[in-house]
């Protein structure tokens, strides 16, 4: 394209390169497309499973309002909402709504589920992102250290730490962190996303994003930013350490196995330093399995977020999910669960594409 305008010499030089690139991107494009199309059956299966599982024992209205209405009133409500139609009709109806982005209405506070997702999704995203950063820093750092000090005391210590991270339920870790830092030492806030004064400041914003860190930057007030960050430390740490345990194990295992492979051996025999071997030769290929597993980890993190948010009253999707669960508002639960299913499918897609970018062998 731009090559036509370029001088002839440059054109000559560019040609082979461009041809090569085209060939690569063709295969890559095909991979991305097939992988993208695979999302559809995955989401479809999950939506179907979720729908029928949720409706197997009754309609959401009876579940949410069962004790509070007379049988006649209940029947009228059920009929009005169309929950007395055959299940398959409701299912098709639900699928149709889903295509238009309509996930139903909550029973308890009568809001469209989609608006709840928009309002609280950002909080969960912010928490998950912060936790992922912590998990990656801790996981990669300690994992590499353990691989380098294989079979030594440091390795045993780090592995024990990793197993402990994994063995501790995220809500218990949250409670302990809260107890130590918020109650006994009293250096960090115990719950919530920000203090009241910060919330007041945010209400002045013209276009709040829902991401408190970004909102705080918008305000340009250092105290607000510090307040938001102070609130985020404990939840992000709890959720991050949960995932860090898995990353430590992964990084360690993969670095050790690439460290044993023939080409590293060859590099070593050429006199490449151990440090460089670990940092360059063994490191890059070790990254691929880690990225592949990251999709799973993000799915796990979303489940962890439900528990973390409940522990810290972090008002995100997970917190709302547990609230709706308590209220037996299954329409809302269904909506949130389906949204998470879609997020998981999309994240797995992105992760696969990244893995394919790094490692051409993944493409098929």
């Amino acid at each position: 394209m731009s090559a036509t305008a370029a001088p002839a010499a440059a054109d000559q030089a560019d040609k082979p390169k461009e041809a090569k690139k085209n060939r690569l991107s063709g295969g890559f494009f095909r991979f991305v497309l097939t992988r993208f199309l695979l999302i559809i059956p995955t989401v479809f299966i999950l939506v179907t499973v979720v729908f029928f599982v949720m409706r197997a024992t009754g309609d959401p209205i009876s579940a949410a309002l069962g004790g509070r209405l007379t049988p006649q009133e209940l029947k009228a409500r059920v009929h009005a909402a169309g929950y007395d139609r055959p299940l398959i009709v409701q299912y098709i109806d639900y699928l149709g709504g889903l295509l238009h982005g309509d996930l139903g209405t909550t029973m308890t506070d009568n809001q469209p589920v989609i608006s709840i997702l928009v309002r609280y999704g950002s909080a969960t995203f912010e928490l998950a992102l912060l936790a992922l950063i912590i998990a990656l820093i801790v996981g990669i750092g300690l994992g590499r250290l353990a691989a380098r000090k294989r079979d030594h005391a440091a390795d045993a210590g780090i592995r024990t730490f990793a197993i402990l991270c994994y063995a501790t339920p995220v809500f218990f870790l949250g409670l302990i962190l809260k107890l130590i830092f918020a109650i006994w030492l009293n250096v960090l806030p115990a719950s919530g996303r920000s203090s009241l004064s910060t919330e007041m400041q945010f209400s002045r914003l013209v276009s709040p994003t829902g991401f408190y860190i970004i909102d705080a930057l918008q305000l340009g007030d250092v105290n607000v930013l510090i307040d938001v960050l102070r609130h985020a430390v404990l939840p992000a740490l709890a959720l991050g350490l949960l995932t860090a345990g898995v990353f430590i194990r992964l990084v360690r295992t993969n670095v050790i196995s690439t460290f044993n492979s023939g080409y590293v051996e060859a590099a070593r025999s050429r006199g490449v330093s151990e440090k460089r071997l670990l940092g360059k030769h063994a490191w890059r290929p070790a990254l691929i399995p880690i990225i592949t597993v990251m999709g799973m980890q993000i799915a796990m993190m979303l489940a962890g977020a439900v528990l973390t948010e409940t522990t810290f009253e972090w008002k995100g999707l997970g917190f709302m999910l547990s609230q709706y669960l308590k209220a037996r508002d299954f329409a809302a639960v269904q909506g949130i669960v389906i949204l998470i299913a879609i997020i998981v499918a999309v994240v797995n897609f992105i992760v696969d594409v990244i893995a394919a970018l790094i490692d051409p062998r993944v493409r098929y």
Partner: protein
Amino acid sequence: MAGSTTTKLASKRDHRLEGFNLDKKSFWRKLPIVKQLRVAVGWQKGMLITGLVLCAFFLLVALFAPVIAPYGHAQIKDASGSFPAQEAPSAKHIWGTTAGGFDVFSRVVWGTRTAIIAIIVAVLLSIFAGVLLGLISGYFGGWLDRVLVMIADAVYSFPSLLLAILMAIMISHGQSGLVSGILASGISITVVYIPQYFRTIRAEVIRIKESAYVESARVVGASTWRILTKHLFKNSTRTLPVILTLNSSEAILTLAGLGFLGFGIEPTAAAEWGYDLNRSVSDVTAGIWWTAVFPGLAIVLIVLGITLVGESLNDLADPRLRARKSAGEVVGSIENTSVDEPTDMSARNEVVAELDAAKNPIASGTPVTVTDRDADFVAPEWTGEGQGTGAADDRGEE
């Protein structure tokens, strides 16, 4: 061996192989854990033993819960009157009491029982369903296989806790008594883990079903069921112990997660750690630590125990991850002749460098020969010794 046809020979083969090992193994030594325990060295052995001790401890507590626990799981008063609420640990209530007046120590002890029953139910059910589906799917293939794989993948990629919540809603509508509660939690967890067993068994079956002995069994006229149960099942369970242990620990976390969200077992029906932690969230804010710390520690320790066992099994099954053997045990072991099943792990020698032996408490420090192609670590100091660095396979020359 491919020439031998009857199904009897398949089992005979195993028997003959055992004869090749230097020491005749008793039944006790062939038990999964015991075998690994003998193979493990150094801190890896420590990890395995710690895990086993923790597991045994919790099993005993669950077994003798009525003897250990001073009060019932839902008891809020005794002969001398009602228990005080949120009382700090004292002589009468050694771990204090909860806001509801329960004795924390008794709840934790009884909770062990709930946890262990839930694991057993969950693991047994999911193994049964997962293995069966995996065998059928892997052996027959076709559209059934494709559909099952797709469903399993979709379910597998989904956060397990959310799936368990859905199942709990379906099974018990969120409220449950003792048996139904444990069953509901067990089944909820089951559904989550079926795909893992399914995938592993299916992969193994696909690998094995082309082998000569399966084909010969088919030629001889063994029924499909017999091939499935006898030839395929027995040979595809290699990786099961590892998944099983790792899943049991996840099962406990899922059960606790369900309880924490108020979807587990009602407190009057049975003691459940997750529920107790849920109740303790508000206690913690008031500085009351004992209602949270003890049930939480119980979860951490039991999961830690199971995970340590699972991790050790996993590492021992993977020669790349196994802690390197000391020299003394390597010498004199006889090569395992089986191609696809390196059962005797001590026969698979790992390279031991002197510098490594020096740090290994068990190693004698005597010079070591390279006995395996798997030269997994060569330090710069090492190369000065003039030994081969594993370019050639030196096996059998020792």
